[in-house]
């Protein structure tokens, strides 16, 4: 078993190193080597799935290092239902993205490097889902961040791409500081990072040192911060729309199975230690994010941006689900979303790819992602229209599609939670389900708008550019290598794989498998009640949401097709609501002016302070001594040495005076002698 898991993990990593250092002669097979490797990983994870799902859990760990016997640091593998299904999904989506990329990226200069990075990305995500402890989870978490940095900034000559990559990494880092603090606190209070062990310690209420409720809240919140960053939750969601600067298949991978899924996965892993306060925060952050994302998706011109904001919104649903205790529903949505969002992105990729080629053929430069330029593609690209339609239907949650099952589960979970929490007559909690329903309407609106703009009506490009006249005949549908992954993703967007009936999913294999872990803060009874209430509200939830979706789609149709609402007015910047949506609540500007500019100013001020104050102080201090030295030197020369010189001069003068006596002349001596004798004589006599 260990061997099998490691094998699954190693192959993508091998792709990474192998493709970077592949000898020249093998380079033309590089892409297929990567795909084969991933295929083997996928088969391996299917085998693991067979072993584990619904049957058992399996844990294996090794000592990594230790400081003393009490606190060993371990690394390990933990396979339960959640991790094996994630393994399968990650391998599958990644494999499909690989396949798609063969035709999407084949003209790229660094084609192999691209596949190498994909390998690293997949490896990091696979490692993350099988980790049995928080430290290794964090390690892979950061590696996911690195891989996303490399892939988002893959076209490193493009300035916007590098900026986006840096932004993604840094914003994630902000969330990660919270995560890291949480990890440290877990170590302090529980003395271990092994998730199963912590679960036992919590359920027995036996932390290493006594822990109070506010400390539990702190730990939970800090861990949630990690998810806020990685899963693009409010207020750190701003990196995700920029992240589409990377190649489109990367976006598909990033938005579906890897990266953003990691945050929700983390929440699932630590669900048992989130107390009521944290769950409340989680629920509200999720609600806000879901609404903001959907709202911002309404007016974007760039088709990938719409999808990016839609991802934010869908992630908001998942986080919301976790917050309201609808653990199963949230994970269920994570899985269904992986399929339809990958499908949507790959469809978008196919559109961009095809138009890009068209642009080259007719020698026309235009923004191949601007939806206002791309209208009326449906005629020539029926396959993409179909795939986009199916995946989009799943996203808005139309019946018969997978999104219907999972989204309604979250919605009724939220409703159940609000009614349970609001038992005392408080309507405060109803904000969450009401806002969630509102978001359903918005989702229908933006998906409808996107679908109609792209595929309905006549070919817009030929109307706008003279060069593009009759160009629609040159437009090609997706090549076969793109079609295969899309077909699989379309199938995954239907209800079939997930549920026995298209109406409800409570008793289906998937939700039965993803059992909610006991959260002692909620209490077993409450968790049971919530589940029952969810079942209870299910019918009405479906009715309401279907009604909302249909009205949303209808409005979209009426606005964008019948009335050509903003098709002609490309610059439609005056209305403040429009601005709010287009700029996604001005969060970017806020961060730019608060964090970036003030941070930069602070850095400059610090540097200035360092140079002008601290260093100057040191210099002045040093100079003080030098000056003092000069003063002392002057004193030494003038006063002390002066005295010495004075003495010496005195001696010299005396010497000179006496010397003058000694002329050496006999007459002088004679006179002197006579004077002397006379003087002695005079002295003796008197």
């Amino acid at each position: 078993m260990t061997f099998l898991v490691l094998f699954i993990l190693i192959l993508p990593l091998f792709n990474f190193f192998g493709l970077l250092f592949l000898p020249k002669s093998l380079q033309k097979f590089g892409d297929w080597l990567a795909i084969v490797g991933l295929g083997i990983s996928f088969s391996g994870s299917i085998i693991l799935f067979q072993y584990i799902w619904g049957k058992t859990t399996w844990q294996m760990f090794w000592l990594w290092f230790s400081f003393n016997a009490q606190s060993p640091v371990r690394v390990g593998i933990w396979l339960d239902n959640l991790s094996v299904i994630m393994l399968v999904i990650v391998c599958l989506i990644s494999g499909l993205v690989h396949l798609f990329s063969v035709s999407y990226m084949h003209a790229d200069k660094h084609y192999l490097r691209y596949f190498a990075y994909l390998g690293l990305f997949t490896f990091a995500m696979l490692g993350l889902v099988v980790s049995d402890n928080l430290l290794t989870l964090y390690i892979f978490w950061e590696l996911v961040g690195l891989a996303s940095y490399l892939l988002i900034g893959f076209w490193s000559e493009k300035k916007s791409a590098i900026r986006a990559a840096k932004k993604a990494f840094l914003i994630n880092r902000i969330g990660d500081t919270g995560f890291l603090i949480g990890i440290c606190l877990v170590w302090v209070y529980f003395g271990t990072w092994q998730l199963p062990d912590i679960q036992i310690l919590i359920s027995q209420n036996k932390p290493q040192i006594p822990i109070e409720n506010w400390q539990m809240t702190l730990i939970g919140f800090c861990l949630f911060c990690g998810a806020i960053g990685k899963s693009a939750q409010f207020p750190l969601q701003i990196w995700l729309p920029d992240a589409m600067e990377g190649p489109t298949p990367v976006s598909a991978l990033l938005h579906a199975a890897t990266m953003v899924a990691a945050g929700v996965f983390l929440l699932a892993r630590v669900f048992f230690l989130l107390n009521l306060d944290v769950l409340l925060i989680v629920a509200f952050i999720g609600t806000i994010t879901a609404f903001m994302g959907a709202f911002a998706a309404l007016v974007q011109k760039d088709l990938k941006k719409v999808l990016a904001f839609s991802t934010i919104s869908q992630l908001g649903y998942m986080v919301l689900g976790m917050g309201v205790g609808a653990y199963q529903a949230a994970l269920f949505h994570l899985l269904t979303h992986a399929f339809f969002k990958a499908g949507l992105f790959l469809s978008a990729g196919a559109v961009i790819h095809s138009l890009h080629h068209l642009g080259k053929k007719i020698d026309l430069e235009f923004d191949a992602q601007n939806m206002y330029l791309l209208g009326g593609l449906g005629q020539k690209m029926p396959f993409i229209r179909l795939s986009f339609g199916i995946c989009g239907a799943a996203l808005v949650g139309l019946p018969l599609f997978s999104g219907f099952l999972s989204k309604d589960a979250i919605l009724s979970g939220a409703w159940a939670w609000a009614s349970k929490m609001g038992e005392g007559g408080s309507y405060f909690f109803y904000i969450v389900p009401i806002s969630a329903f509102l978001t359903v309407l918005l989702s229908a609106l933006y998906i409808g708008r996107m679908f109609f703009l792209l595929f309905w009506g006549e070919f817009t490009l030929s109307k706008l550019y003279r060069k593009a006249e009759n160009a629609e005949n040159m437009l090609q549908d997706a090549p076969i290598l793109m079609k295969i992954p899309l077909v699989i993703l379309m199938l995954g967007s239907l209800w079939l794989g997930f549920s026995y009936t298209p109406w409800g999913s409570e008793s289906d294999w998937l939700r039965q498998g993803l059992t909610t872990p006991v959260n002692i803060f909620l209490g077993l009874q409450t968790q049971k009640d919530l589940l029952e209430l969810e079942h209870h509200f299910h019918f009405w939830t479906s009715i309401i949401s279907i009604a909302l979706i249909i009205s949303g789609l209808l409005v979209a149709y009426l606005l964008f097709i019948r009335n050509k609402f903003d098709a002609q007015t490309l610059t439609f910047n005056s209305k403040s609501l429009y601005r709010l949506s287009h700029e996604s609540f001005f969060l970017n500007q806020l961060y730019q002016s608060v964090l970036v500019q003030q941070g930069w100013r602070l850095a400059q001020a610090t540097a200035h302070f360092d140079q002008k104050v601290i260093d100057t102080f040191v210099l002045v201090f040093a100079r003080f001594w030098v000056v003092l030295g000069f003063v002392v030197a002057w004193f030494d020369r003038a006063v002390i040495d002066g005295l010495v010189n004075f003495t010496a001069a005195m001696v010299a003068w005396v010497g000179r005076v006496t010397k003058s006596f000694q002329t050496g002349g006999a007459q002088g001596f004679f006179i002197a002698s006579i004077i002397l004798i006379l003087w002695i004589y005079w002295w003796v006599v008197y």
Partner: protein
Amino acid sequence: MQNYLLSILIFLPLGAMVGILCLPNSQKKTFKIITLLVTGLQLLVSLVIYATYAVSKGSPAGVYHTSGFQFAERVEWIRLDLGNLGQLSIDYWLGVDGLNVMLVVLTGLVMFVGAIASWQIQTKVKGYFALYLLLSSSLMGCFVALDFFLFYLFFEFMLLPMYFLIGIWGGERREYASIKFFIYTLFGSLLILIAMIALYLSVIDPHKTARQAGLAEKSQVIDNQILTKTQDKLAEGTLPANNRVHTFGLPMMMDKANYLPNASLQPNSGSETWTMRALIFWALLLGFAIKLPIVPFHTWLPDAHVEAPTPVSVVLAGVLLKIGGYGILRIAYSIFPDMAIEYASWVASLGVLAIIYGALNALAMADLKKMVAYSSVSHMGFVLLGVASLTAEGVNGAIFQMFSHGILSAMLFIIVGVLYDRTHDRQIEHYRGLSQAMPYFTGLVMIAFFASLGLPGFSGFIGEVFTLLGSFKSTKIAIGISVVAVGGIVLGAAYFLWTLQRMFLGKFWVKDAQWKTQLHDLYPAEWLMLGGLAAATLVFGLFPSLVFNLTSQSVEVFLGLFVK
């Protein structure tokens, strides 16, 4: 042979230096080869020490156990009878335990790398390599000396070669930088000197005192009983003054029982002398803080780095700074555990200040080398934070961080050197999109940057996480301080990634079109250095037990000082 390995480490380069001085000036190549060989041998010997360092349970772990050091050498060096002032005794005492063994390995590694990087030195070759070897010898001596006097000797001796290496082979403002470095560090040494004398006056060596006072026969082995008896007599005050053998031995200073009863540094005395202990503790801390460096005593560092030639920067950041951290561990903290506990939150705050302040400065720097220099300040802040935490995680983490930073800063300064060699320009804004001209170089730069910003899998991560973990676990450090420290990792990522974006990614552009021809990718020697260091940071990041196995026992003994 094994018993002289440490002496070999010290005297091998010293001998080689004498050899170089005897050779004629024209033998330029020979000097380089000799230095490379000698530092290579040094690395080899330090690896032998690393490999044979006993780590099994119950093997000696040093710190304050005088007999607990491995590869120990102890010979009486100076002994003077000062009458009523007692006996002065200085030992030639070397040894390794968990606190310094990794630093010996680090010194071996960095000096070797520095020797390779010195290959391109062209002027006054003889003097350069003689000084380089002298530096190597005094650095090694500093890390393995267990007698305070000996330590101080090496500590001072390091200044001389460093001063000339920066002052003669440095950049434009080399004279300013070298004199600043010299005087600043000398100022710190003075504080250490004061502390050393104060400690010397307060502490006796019970072994030698027992012999001197006739408590043990000449041939008699001194056991614990005799030691206790001596220490008891000392405490009673019945030991005649002329029989007291004063010592500079560091482990002796860590035992309360060795202090004179009326000494000003006596740990058990009342509140009156408490200030004296605090003063001396802060004198030591400040002395080492200048070396580490700790904000606000760090301004010599960017100047010295910017002016120093590449190999000297490598040694300066890679090894010299660690003497500060090591000194705090081995001397300030071990001898004054009471004060360390008392001021834990202050010291931790200083560490956090260095982390944030250094990172902010690094963000604002326009000169790549200055950016790297300030990143050193930031990273060494983690060392101080870890030490201040007084937990197994924090102290082990701090030692690991020192080791890891030694590797990474060497790598970063070589990276700066690679660019500077080609264009003689270090301004970040003068380069763009270097990845297109120098793809392999950029690859290694990315490894160095990501490792430095604490990406898991590389050694920087372990150092950062465990020092932080220690500070969260410590009961002496407020949680707010630790939380602020975590903010340092965001800033760290910010300045490294921003630099990466500005210099290495994007469209290729350099300020001077002539440079385009000069910017060729790595030469074999550069490959060797950067590749080797990158491998080292990866290996130690994946297998931290390569360090922790050796350090953890001694750290446990060290932490025992703080619970007594």
